[in-house]
């Protein structure tokens, strides 16, 4: 079972995790959330832009790679776009497997890869009205490459 979605609206973690749990021993997940600050300044919102068409293909490819590497019974990736305020969900990555180690590793792999190989861009809007585009982080590159 594979589910990939790019959407403005929120997701229902309960429903998504329950859908994965059928016939699995375990479901691992990671939810990325908008923080209340960035670089020490209060954040008003994140704006998330993506490359329609390419994004979905990139996420499908990531799911395929995870399914090839671990014994998964399901894989769900949901990424939100648009303007999101602190505390709101950004992304859900969840996988299910018969044995927990597969789901735990595949979930960490997927979020690490997503950060560097899916065409999303974030802009930070600060409380004082200024905004800027987030720069890619070296640590994300390092985390993604560690799986090679």
């Amino acid at each position, binding site marked *: 079972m594979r589910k990939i979605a790019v959407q403005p609206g929120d997701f229902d973690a309960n429903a998504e995790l329950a859908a994965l749990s059928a016939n699995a021993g375990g479901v691992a997940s990671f939810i990325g959330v908008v923080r209340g600050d960035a670089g020490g300044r209060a954040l008003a919102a994140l704006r998330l832009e993506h490359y329609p068409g*390419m994004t979905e293909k990139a996420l499908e490819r990531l799911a395929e790679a995870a399914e090839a590497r671990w014994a998964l019974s399901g894989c769900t990736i949901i990424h939100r776009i648009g303007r999101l305020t602190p505390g709101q969900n950004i992304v859900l990555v969840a996988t299910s497997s018969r044995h927990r180690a597969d789901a735990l590793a595949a979930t960490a792999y997927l979020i690490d890869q997503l950060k560097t190989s899916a065409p999303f861009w974030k802009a930070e809007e600060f409380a004082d009205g200024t905004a800027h585009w987030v720069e890619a982080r070296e640590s994300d590159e390092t985390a993604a490459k560690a799986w090679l």
Partner: protein
Amino acid sequence: MRILYFAWLREKIGQGEEVFTPPASVTTPRQLIACLRQRGGGYAAAFANEALIRCAIGQEFQPLDAPLGAAGEIAFFPPVTGG
């Protein structure tokens, strides 16, 4: 050829998408960047530092020196920051 721009490239250039037919001498994204940069203004600003530019040809990430081939769609954008 359809060219797409995302994030600050889109903002600096002032549009997210355009149709452009480059000269036949342009065979790579890097050459296309040089050609677009000559337009000056927002293009010169957007493409000032090639080290910050990534591209996709036919919706696949490619290096700036990959062959453009008969690509119908090419996109320029900064390194991705999703998740």
